[in-house]
C-alpha cells in the first residue's frame, strides 16, 4: 500500500467525513480496488467507524473490495442496449472468458461488469473495455474486440480497431 498517496488523498479532502465517498473513489484509483488494509488505515486516520466505510463500500456499485483485471469490460445493460440484444452480448463474453458478472479472469486480464447505462444510447448496444467504447456490438463481434487486449501473439488476425 502506497501510504504517501493515501495520505495525500486524505489531505486533499481535508479529512472531512462528509467527503468519505469521494475519498474512497480517489483511493480506488490507486489499485483499481479497495484493499482491506487500506480501508482499515483510512478508518483510523479519519477516526471514522470501519462499519460505516464498509457500508459505503458495499452500497455503491462503483466500489470493489476484490482485485480487478487490467481491463474492465463493462457491458451496458441500459434499456436501449437491452432492446438491441445486450443480454446476448453479455452471455457471449461470459462464455468466451468463462467468468460471471463481477468476476475476473484467472490471468487478471479482464474483469466483467455490467452497467445500468452509459448514456450512449444512440449507439446501442454499447460495450466498453477500459476506456474504449464499442458501438452496435453483437455476439459475432465480441471475440475480435476482446482479442485486441491480449499480447500480439494471441490476437486474432483481423482484430478490429
Amino acid at each position: 500500500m502506497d501510504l504517501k498517496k493515501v495520505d495525500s488523498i486524505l489531505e486533499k479532502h481535508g479529512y472531512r467525513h462528509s467527503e468519505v465517498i469521494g475519498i474512497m473513489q480517489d483511493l480506488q484509483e490507486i489499485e483499481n480496488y479497495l484493499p482491506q488494509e487500506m480501508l482499515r488505515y483510512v478508518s483510523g486516520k479519519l477516526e471514522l467507524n470501519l462499519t460505516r466505510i464498509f457500508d459505503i463500500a458495499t452500497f455503491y456499485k462503483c466500489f470493489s473490495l476484490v482485485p480487478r483485471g487490467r481491463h474492465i469490460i463493462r457491458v451496458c445493460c441500459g434499456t436501449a442496449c437491452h432492446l438491441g440484444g445486450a443480454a446476448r452480448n453479455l452471455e457471449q463474453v461470459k462464455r468466451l472468458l468463462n467468468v460471471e458478472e463481477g468476476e475476473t479472469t484467472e490471468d487478471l486480464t479482464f474483469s466483467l461488469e455490467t452497467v445500468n447505462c452509459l448514456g450512449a444510447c444512440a449507439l446501442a448496444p454499447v460495450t466498453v473495455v477500459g476506456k474504449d467504447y464499442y458501438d452496435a456490438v453483437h455476439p459475432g463481434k465480441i471475440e475480435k474486440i476482446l482479442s485486441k487486449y491480449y499480447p500480439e501473439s494471441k490476437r486474432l488476425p483481423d482484430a478490429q480497431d
Partner: protein
Amino acid sequence: MHRIRTISDLEELRQSILAKRDPEKVVIGVCCTTGCQARRSGKVIDAFENEIREKGLQDKVEIKKTGCHGFCEMGPIVVVEPTNSFYCRVGTKDVTDIVSETALKDKVIDRLLWKHPATKEAVVSQNDIPFYKKQKKVVSHNSGRIDPTNIEDYIAVGGYSALAKGLTAMTPAGVVETVVASGIRGRGGGGFPTGIKWRICSSAPGDTKYIIANGDEGDPGAYMDRSLMEGDPHSIIEGMIIGGFAIGAREGIIYVRDEYPIAIQHLSMAIKQAEEYGLLGHDILGTGFDFTIRISRGGGAFVCGEETALIISIEGKSGTPRARPPYPAIEGLWGNPTVLNNVETFANIPKIVLNGAPWYSDMGTAGSKGTKIFSLVGKAKNTGLVEVKMGTTLREIIFDIGGGIRKSKRFKAVQTGGPSGGCIPISKIDMPVDYDSLRDAGAIMGSGGMIVMDETSCMVDVARYFIHFLMFESCGKCVPCREGLKQMHEILKNICEGRGQRGDIELLSDLAGVMTTASLCALGGTAPNPVLSTIRYFRDEYEAHIFEKRCPAGVCKNLFEYVINQERCNGCTLCRLRCPQEAIFGEKKKPHVIDPQRCIKCGICYSICKREAIRVK
C-alpha cells in the same frame, strides 16, 4: 484573463471577444462529447490539428471542440462554417478533404452529407434535415455551437447576461415569481412546479440554504442531462447561481453520475473558469452576493437520484431515502432548506430570466410549459437527442423527427419515463406529449427517455427487464419495495422462461397495488408501472407466454427457435464456421439447417448473416 466586477465589465468583455474574432476565419466544429468520442472523434480532432499545423493554416482555420448536436447516431459530427456543412460519420481519412475542399474553397463534400433514405438526396445544412426540422432548441441551443470548455465562448453568445439581469435588475422575490409565472415544472421526473419549490424554500426559516443540481441521470436510456453537462455546463451553473440568489443560498452542489467522466471534467473546468472570471465566488458582479459551487460524484446507485437519498449521499453516507415530509425545501442538506432541481431544470432558468415568463409560458400546453429534451432511442431510424415544445405528438417525434422504424418493421410501443414509466401503444400515437397526458396513459414524463420498440421487442421481457433493474437498485429499506420487486421478478422470470401459470397476471396486479400504496419512496411506488402498462396494453403477449408457451417477438430464449429460411440462404457457410456449438449443417452454396438440440441461441448466426436468412420461430 478578465475578472468581471460589474455588469459593464461583462458587456465589455463580450464585445471584445466578438471583436477579436476574425470573420474571415473558417471554423471547423468537431463534437467531443461521449457519443462522438465513442466513435473516435478524439482522433478526428487530432488529425485536424495536425493537418492545420502541417499546412500552416493556423490563421485561416480554427478547430473548435463542441458539445452534442443530438444526432448522435450520425457521429462523429463535424460542422464547417461559413458553408454550414453538416458532415456525418467523419473519420480521420476525411480530414484532408474537409480542410482542402470545404475550409479553403467553400466546396461542400457530397459523400459526407446526410442523405435522405428514400430520395437519396444530400442535405447540406443541419436545419434542412428532417431530424431537426420539427425541433425547437431552447435548452440545447448552445450545445454543438460553443466550446463547452471555454467560458468566453459562452459569454460571446450572451451567457451570464441572465445572471447580470437577475442580480441587478430584479429582487430575489422577483426572480422567484418570474419562475413561478413561467410555469416550468421539474425536468427530473416528478414534474413539481419549480417556482413553487423555490418560493417554499425562500420563505423557509434558516440562514443557511443550499442549491443542489441533480445530475445523477439514473434512468437507463436517457442521456439529455449528460449532454447538457458536457455540452453547455455554464448554463447549468448560471441557473444555479440565479437560484441561489433567489432563495438566499450561498453554496451549490452538483451531484454527477460517476459513469459520466466527461461531464465531470467539463463541469469542473466550467466552475474553475467562472471563479476566475469572478462569476462565482465573492461579491459576484459587484452586487455583494457570494456563491460557490462544488461537485459531488455519485457512486453508481440508482436510488441516489431520489432527492432525499441524494442529499444523504452528499453527506457522505450510503444513500437510502427517508420519508417525506419534511421536504428538502424545508429540511434538506444538513437539515437546512434546500432547493434540489434537475440539471435541465436549471439550464432553463437563464432563458426564462432573460426572455421573461410570458415568452416561456407561450410554449407548451395548458399544464406543461416550455420545451423538453427527449432521448429518442431504440428502434427508430434516427436516434439521438431531440428538443421539442411540450405538446408535440408522439407521431411527430417518432415518425417525423425519428424517421419511423428501422428496417421497415412495425412500431409496437414507446417506453417513456424509465423504470418508473410505462409502455404506450400505437393507439395513442397521436397523443400530445406532456406531463399529464403521459400520466393518464399509464406512463410518466420522467427525465425524458423515449425508447421505441418494434415487433421484435417482447413486452413481457421489457417488464421483466425493468423489474430486474429495480430489484438490484432497491435499497432494501422498506419491505413492499424490497420483497415486492423480488416476487414480481420471480413471476415475470417464470413467464419468460415458459413456467407461467394461470393467475400470474392477477397476482402481479395485486402485488403492484401493495407496492404503489405502501412503498417508502417513489422507486418502489412507481416500480409497478412498467408491468401494469404492459398488462394494460399488451395482455395478449402475456397470455401467449403463459398459455401457449410462445414468445411472439422471439426474445425469450426458452420460447423460440432459430431457423434458416431455405429460400434466402445461399450457403455462404459463414454461420456454420462461426457457430460455437457446431449446430449448423450444410454444404457450400446449399441452404443450411440448424440443429435445435445443439443450438444454445447465442445469436451469433442471427447477427452475422448478411442475407437475413436466419429467423426466429
